[in-house]
């Protein structure tokens, strides 16, 4: 009886709790009674968890919250709390980025999430191993191969493509090993001549996709496995442990290897595999090895067709400039060496390596070895990897100044693709902190960098004239600043005795010479290492006085900071919604204080809203790439962070605060200069009690700013 009463009380309490958080939501549910019963069965902590998140989700959308709470008790049956949280965040991100429909779908498809989660627990993701594999493949040598994430595992001879996740094994470590072995095997295809130009062409002519390619692929795998066990026995042992799905596969593979044993010889090449294909037509084939990936000749051919002529031209040009250098040396010494163009010839020495590949050894000019730089060596190695030899017409030094695009410089082949994105304004995605969820909204803000249109340089001239006196005094003060201590010896005054100087002085005294009075060591500050990023508010509210004061301040500051030799950059920021965040380049770190910079300062104009978090993250990233001991991020602002939509009030402040904490963690000191008189109410929370300054009158900003900067950096 007591138990039943307890149950009833529980139900009533849950019912009340639910009504308290949102009567509306409950009304949307078809089977509210069952839900109350389900929730009442859960632990008290779990119930609180559900209430909390229902409230948070309801802030974004009530219907979404209803879908959540309907499935929540069920979710706790399959998942632990952290996983349920992941499910919620996934749906919320979908809501932010793709809309309500997608978010509801995620809540409704609980089973799908549970499956994916279980796979995720044991599977291995590409990004978990990409860093390691990149170094590993680079370390193994040969052409610098890039790593890419694609649905299939294959290589196109410039990239090794691997799938986004691998889950063939029940343990994550084994799946990570599968990644490693796949990458190593695809590397071996490149290293041991699978994709040699002639063999590839012959294979494409001779084989058909349905019957003979699979044979060829397995024969190549036999050969490559032998190559790897010769050169990298440790790796080969590891590969053997995961090669086969079961014992039957192992046995059939061993039988197959025995039939093609001649391909394990040290001098066997891909062409031998091609010859042996006919022997296996119609015979049963063993299942492919777990890590062998796919062979996609069409993709390789496409890349090869671009690379071969590019590298040929690059080599000829490199040889031409080398010949010119060598020619200059010889002409100073006309007695030695053959004369005339016919005698001037390059030749190459190579060493044979397994798989019939050839390694570059040395380059000779008129039979005399000549020095090759790392770029030329990499180029020759790459050509040898494609062709197996360097043909004579490759070694005819081209004429200098051949119209070869500079972007296709030696060894930069794969990098070019990345470069293509650099044209125009590139969109970068940044997360945003949502304090209600205590989570990042991943890739929520889309940010672009833009140039500020040039303004009239007269503005700078006028500012200089207006603040002539001030400018000079700032200059003097700044010249006196020297920071970061160093002990200097033999000083007239100081905090410690300089023992060496003292002994010398004593010797002088004994020998009857005049004693020096410079007997102290002194800690003096010299050698600054400061980098500053000025982040200037260009929101609509700065229109008028504020904008002008900001621009004037920048003019004065630039000249003063340049005196100190500090590295500095100036960026403006503004934006309208998370989809259109913008920062405006006024001066980058690499640029001097040029006339272009001055014209950009003049051209700064008020734009839209103040979405600060994303700007801080982006500019903080730029700043942390600069080598300096002290890094400062100084914000010039006129008010609170604020943007169209939800980015106002506490949300904006909390995101900004979080972004500032992030940059602080990377060793950057943030500081804010503001003219908002109410800043006391929110700035201490964002920047900390002492990391901001309120300038109460706009027109005083130019007077104050240099002083603030001096205080900050000394």
């Amino acid at each position, binding site marked *: 009886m007591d138990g039943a009463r307890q149950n009833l009380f529980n139900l009533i309490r849950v019912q009340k709790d639910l009504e308290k958080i949102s009567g509306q939501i409950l009304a949307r549910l078809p089977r509210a009674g069952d839900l109350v019963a389900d929730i009442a069965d859960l632990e008290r902590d779990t119930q609180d968890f559900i209430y909390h998140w229902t409230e948070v989700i309801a802030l974004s959308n009530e219907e979404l919250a209803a879908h959540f709470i309907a499935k929540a008790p069920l979710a706790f049956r399959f998942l632990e709390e952290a996983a349920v949280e992941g499910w919620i965040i996934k749906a919320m991100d979908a809501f932010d980025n793709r809309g309500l429909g997608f978010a509801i779908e995620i809540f409704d498809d609980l089973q799908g999430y549970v499956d994916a989660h279980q796979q995720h627990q044991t599977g291995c993701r590409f990004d978990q191993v990409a860093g*390691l594999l990149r*170094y590993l493949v680079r*370390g193994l*040598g040969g052409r*610098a191969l890039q790593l890419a994430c694609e649905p299939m595992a294959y290589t196109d001879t410039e990239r090794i493509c691997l799938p986004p996740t691998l889950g063939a094994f029940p343990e994550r470590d084994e799946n990570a090993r599968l990644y490693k072995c796949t990458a190593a095997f695809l590397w071996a295809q490149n290293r041991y001549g699978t994709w040699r130009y002639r063999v590839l062409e012959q294979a494409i002519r001779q084989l058909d996709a349905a019957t003979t390619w699979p044979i060829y692929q397995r024969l190549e795998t036999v050969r490559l496995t032998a190559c790897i066990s010769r050169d990298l026995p440790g*790796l080969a042992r590891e590969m053997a442990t995961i090669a086969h799905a079961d014992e039957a596969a192992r046995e059939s593979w061993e039988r197959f290897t025995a039939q093609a044993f001649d391909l394990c010889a040290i001098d066997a090449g891909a062409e031998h595999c091609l010859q042996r294909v006919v022997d296996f037509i119609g015979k049963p084939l063993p299942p492919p090895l777990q890590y062998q990936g796919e062979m996609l000749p069409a993709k390789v051919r496409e890349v090869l067709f671009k690379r071969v002529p590019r590298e040929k031209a690059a080599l000829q040009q490199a040889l031409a400039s080398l010949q010119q250098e060598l020619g200059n040396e010889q002409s100073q010494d006309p007695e030695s060496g053959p004369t005339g163009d016919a005698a001037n010839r390059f030749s190459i020495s190579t060493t044979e390596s397994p798989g019939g590949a050839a390694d570059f050894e040395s380059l000779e000019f008129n039979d005399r070895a000549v020095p090759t730089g790392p770029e030329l060596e990499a180029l020759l190695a790459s050509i040898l990897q494609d062709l197996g030899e360097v043909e004579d017409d490759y070694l005819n030094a081209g004429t200098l100044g051949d119209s070869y695009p500079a972007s296709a410089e030696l060894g930069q082949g794969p990098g070019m693709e990345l470069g293509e994105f650099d044209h125009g304004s590139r969109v970068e995605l940044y997360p945003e902190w949502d304090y209600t969820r205590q989570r990042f909204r991943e890739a929520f803000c889309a940010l672009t960098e833009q140039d500020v249109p040039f303004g009239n340089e007269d503005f700078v001239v006028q500012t200089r004239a207006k603040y002539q006196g001030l400018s000079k005094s700032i200059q003097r003060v700044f010249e006196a600043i020297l920071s970061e201590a160093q002990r200097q010896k033999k000083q007239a005054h100081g905090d410690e005795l300089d023992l060496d100087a003292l002994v010398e002085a004593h*010797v002088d005294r004994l020998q009857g010479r005049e004693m020096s009075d410079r007997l102290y060591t002194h800690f003096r500050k010299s050698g600054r290492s400061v980098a500053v990023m000025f982040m200037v508010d260009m929101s609509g509210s700065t229109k008028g006085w504020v904008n002008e004061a900001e621009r004037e301040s920048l003019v004065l500051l630039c000249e003063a900071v340049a005196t100190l030799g500090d590295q500095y950059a100036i960026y403006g920021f503004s934006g309208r919604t998370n989809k259109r965040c913008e920062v405006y380049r006024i001066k980058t770190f690499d640029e001097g204080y040029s006339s272009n910079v001055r014209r950009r300062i003049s051209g700064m104009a008020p734009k839209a809203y103040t979405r600060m978090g994303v700007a801080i993250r982006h500019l903080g990233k730029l700043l942390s790439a600069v080598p300096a001991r002290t890094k400062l991020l100084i914000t010039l602002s006129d008010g609170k962070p604020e943007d169209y939509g939800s980015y106002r009030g506490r949300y904006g402040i909390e995101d900004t605060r979080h972004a500032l904490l992030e940059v602080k963690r990377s060793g950057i000191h943030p500081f804010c200069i503001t003219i908002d008189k109410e800043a006391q109410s929110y700035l201490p929370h964002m920047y900390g009690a002492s990391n901001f300054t309120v300038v109460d009158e706009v027109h005083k900003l130019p007077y104050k700013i240099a002083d603030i900067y001096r205080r900050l950096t000394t």
Partner: protein
Amino acid sequence: MPFTHNFEKDHSLNTASDAAERMIEDEPYYEPAGGEIEVFTAAYRNQLPVLLKGPTGCGKTRFIHYMSWVLHRPLVTVACHDDLTAADLVGRYLVRGGETQWLDGPLTHAVRTGAICYLDEIVEARKDTSVVIHPLCDDRRILPIDKLGQLLRVPAEFCLVVSYNPGYQSVLKDLKQSTRQRFVALEFNYPDTEHEQKIVATESGVEAETARRLVKFGIHTRNLKGSGLDEGASTRLLVNAAKLITNGIAPPLACDTAVGHALTDDPEILHAIHELAAAVF
């Protein structure tokens, strides 16, 4: 002005020891790479100073030890550091029992005894050391000692050798043209595979096959130079690893400890180096 200072404990001042102690008595093991012994000998006979360029651990110091043995000259080695001044090289007055006493610095000592003076990592030293190095290195061949008011004539047996690692790529650690253009420069690099295997085997006593794999591993790490590592494994590191292996340490562990952790702290690259070692053995 009363003061006390215990000179006996100060090793930096204890530079003047017997020249004979610095004679290299036993032949050091050195594997010539091609021509450097002849060039050095010719430079020595013509009283030309020598600059050794090359990455760390590729055999510069060993070469100087070897040449000192070949030429039967004592060797004075100074490891330069950023507080090394001209006075540290030339010498200074000391006070002993109220009397002043001059103590030669290592450079002066080497000049007086006709030794080979080897300034290791010359770019680390203070700029004012060029005051004494320059007159030594051109045809004047003198060492001015201003405290004594002396000009030391440099004997024909004396030879100045400096070393320098161009790989640092720091503007602060570049050798000035006015200094470098006084030297005959010998460039050192890691030996080729065959020689390196021989060196690793001879220095440590490992089997030829282990040496071959170690050298292969070394080349793999050198591939990472510029993409993750500042330098690949030097021959010295490979020899260290080989020595651990001869003492019964498992090869992958020896590579991790003697090479991987010596090269970097980055966990991802360490992992990759570990995998490379495991792949080779």
